[in-house]
């Protein structure tokens, strides 16, 4: 089974994230591999261990995104594909899905695994957008994945419990962080990752015109953006035996009780 894992480099959510003057994500600060995508890589490696085949990473992003690829490669995948082009920065989700779908068409995957969401956009749309473009099934939010020949089954968490969803491959699956515990790359893995092939694809390679992507081709635009003033601390009281009563007095004054 050939698996492609979608990985994305995102600004570190522990840092001070900003938009640039033109309203696109500022990617000049500390960047990390989108945490949810580590779970996607781990799941792919587990399926590979059980069923054989290859695991290939796919990302679309700037030059620095190769760091995220190397980090994920250190966990064990075989190879990576990096879609990179001067016209891509500022692409909206619709354009990103066009590019990733075009790249996926060249990769012949039985299974595409994505993270359930990226921590920068948090849009949770990519798996369904790709499935829509490729005409294949999307099974999102998996907490468990099983493969039996061409039959794919996932358990997806819902608010009140879970659902079991089945489809035939090829399909796109997205995973939550409840699905597994991603392995830490070994020293050997990190060294090996440096030598693994990372193939670069341009828009021309994918037959996509520059005007369809980036800021120029974006289907939406940011008109204004502003940092929200930080919340200020209110009153704190130390519990000297009546902390619970103080709390309820506050809640009563605010009309919650």
């Amino acid at each position: 089974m050939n698996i492609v894992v979608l990985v994305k480099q995102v600004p570190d959510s522990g840092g001070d994230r900003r938009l640039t003057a033109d309203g696109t994500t500022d990617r000049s600060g500390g960047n990390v591999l989108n945490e949810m995508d580590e779970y996607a890589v781990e799941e792919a490696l587990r399926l590979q261990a059980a069923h054989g085949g290859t695991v290939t990473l796919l990302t679309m992003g700037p030059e620095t995104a190769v760091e995220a690829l190397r980090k994920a490669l250190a966990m064990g995948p075989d190879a990576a594909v990096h879609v990179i082009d001067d016209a891509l920065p500022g692409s909206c989700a619709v354009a990103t899905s066009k590019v990733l779908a075009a790249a996926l068409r060249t990769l012949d995957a039985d299974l595409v695994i994505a993270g359930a969401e990226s921590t920068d956009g948090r849009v949770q749309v990519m798996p369904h957008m790709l499935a829509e473009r490729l005409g294949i099934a999307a099974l999102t939010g998996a907490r468990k994945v099983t493969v039996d020949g061409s039959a794919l089954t996932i358990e997806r968490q819902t608010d009140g419990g879970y659902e079991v969803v089945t489809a035939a491959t090829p399909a796109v699956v997205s995973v939550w962080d409840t699905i597994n515990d991603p392995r830490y790359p070994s020293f050997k893995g990190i060294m090996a990752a440096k030598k693994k092939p990372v193939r670069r694809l341009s828009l021309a390679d994918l037959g996509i015109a520059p005007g369809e992507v980036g800021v120029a081709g974006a289907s939406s635009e940011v008109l204004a953006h502003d940092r929200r003033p930080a919340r200020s601390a209110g009153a704190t009281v130390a519990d000297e035996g009546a902390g619970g009563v103080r709390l309820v007095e506050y809640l009563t004054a605010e009309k919650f009780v």
Partner: protein
Amino acid sequence: MAEVLVVAEASAAAGVKKVTLEMLTAARTIGSPSVVVFGDEPFADKLGEHGAERVYLAGAADIDDFLVAPKATVLADLIRRVRPAAVLLASTQEGKEIAGRLAVKLDSGLLTDAVAVAPDGTATQAVFAGQVIVTARVRRGVPLITLRPNSLTPSPAPATPVVEPLAVAVTDADRLARVTERVVERKGARPELTEASIVVSGGRGVGSADSFALVEELADLLGGAVGASRAAVDSGFYPHQFQVGQTGKTVSPQLYVALGISGAIQHRAGMQTSKTIVAVNKDPEAPIFELADFGVVGDLFKVVPQAADEIRKRA
């Protein structure tokens, strides 16, 4: 006035969810609201109370057995026919997924996690965990906007909606991902986390799954939902679907109560737009106090039971 489509969050079991009424309230500022309901019950009275002029009823067993693909197909057909000024969906996993498929089908712009929508269809979004507020507009196609629950107060505006059944033409491509089983693990009388106007959350400080009864008790006394930090979820104290934060739910209630939660940035990501924040933590240096409107420095095992007794006394 141009039609505005609202994709209802409603079901026979849960009725019309509050976010649907919030979307109707927002839609009325843009144009004449129509609601699309998937299912057999049009909820015409409830939707009419909040200004729905029309209810499109898409009922077919075929829709429920699959994930969002059939719904997106039905909506895309309707959108091509009525050419609405905008389409509003809830910023839930399903709402966003449907919106994503629609954006591809219609080559339309998509704005997720809106907290406000202006009459001209521009949206205000809270991004990067609410640190940055963005005003954005769609440049192409039908504006597809997902509204975050609890972003505005629904206001009534009585209307008598026309109910129009929709012909549902689901394609084979929509039937690829089949739901074969639905398992209910918990149900209860508590409000849903993202819709609740009060959320009481517990963190690692709660110490055990059993002690979460304390968090539940306070939530029930306040009529709120229960949430949990990731540390509490990872420690097995409470199920993942109740996790608040960057990799969990985003909540924006009137009141958020954090019990034994340190207030890590990834936790704040899911709750810092709450109107009022209250915290109980034994560490006076805990970062949660930096954003709490009211904090009690103390042991939650003393403070919370006392607070519960006090609420019962006042009731």
